[in-house]
């Protein structure tokens, strides 16, 4: 049987990758993808715990079902917010409106 720590290592590396994407990227869509990767890492850790600790058995899986549904809802909301951001600032890059304003005032 695969040790639990292997799953946790993969989960932590995925969380780190997602955090890297969220910190360094400016494109809103890439930021959402980074958040999804982080969420996937957390899901793997939860399911692994639920298998290796039988007290958790269904708690982990049930939680995952709830978490996945909420993730779908919040991605839809993020899409709407991106649309709004684009109509307002005509870009999907964070930080650009500020630079455009600064360029205009120069």
């Amino acid at each position, binding site marked *: 049987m695969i040790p639990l720590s292997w799953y946790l290592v993969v989960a932590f590396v995925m969380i780190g990758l997602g955090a890297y994407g969220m910190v360094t990227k400016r494109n809103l869509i890439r930021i959402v993808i980074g958040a999804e990767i982080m969420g996937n890492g957390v899901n793997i850790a939860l399911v692994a715990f639920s298998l290796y600790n039988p007290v958790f058995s269904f708690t982990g899986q049930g939680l995952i079902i709830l978490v996945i549904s909420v993730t*779908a809802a919040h991605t839809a909301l993020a899409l709407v917010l991106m649309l709004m951001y684009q109509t307002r600032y005509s870009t999907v890059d964070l930080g650009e409106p500020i630079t455009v304003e600064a360029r205009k005032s120069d």
Partner: protein
Amino acid sequence: MLMQGFEALFEQVEFIVIAAVVLLLAYLALEHREIVYSVFFFGFMAATVAGFYLLLEAPFIAGMQIAVYTGGISALIIFGVLLLPRAQGSSLEVLQTPRMRRIGMVLSATVMTLSAVLALIFPWYESFPADRPAIAQDLAGLAAWLWGEHGIYVQLVALMMLTAVIGSVAILKMEKTEKLRPLKDRPGLGSRDEKKNEGTSETEAHDDEHQDAKEAGTQ
């Protein structure tokens, strides 16, 4: 005995292959130049993560992962890319200086290494109860757990999703109303100097409104 050893080895090889593919696809999803390709890579990554759930004896979660992430969320993000034309020809990699990128990389690599080392050295097994009941990961038990005593959570999630949908529609409608009557045309907001140049009748009307409001305020 030999068969069991072979099975365990096969499982480990499976795990390593899935982990390598998942991490590679996740990296590509973040770093690929074309945003459409990175969405596709994300979808494939979500499908590969389902392999972990199969290894963890949770086939229902695997199916749900593929249905929701690969089928739903990837499609949603692709719609997002289609609806946001500026997303494709982005970006502003100019602003993303190499120094900032390096700092982000070093920070996340440190976090990753530290947590991975913690995961490897922490004695997880000691925190688990010694007398394990038999693992019951069947679908009927999951359904009983979810709908029996925890039905209220399912209803809460349903309520949350309804709120998200209604909120999205409300935000978009708000946007439309704003477009029909832009903020700068309202008296008191935006630039009033432009309006004076447009014509006197409109400004007079606005002034009348102002006076009416003032009178109403004094009364």
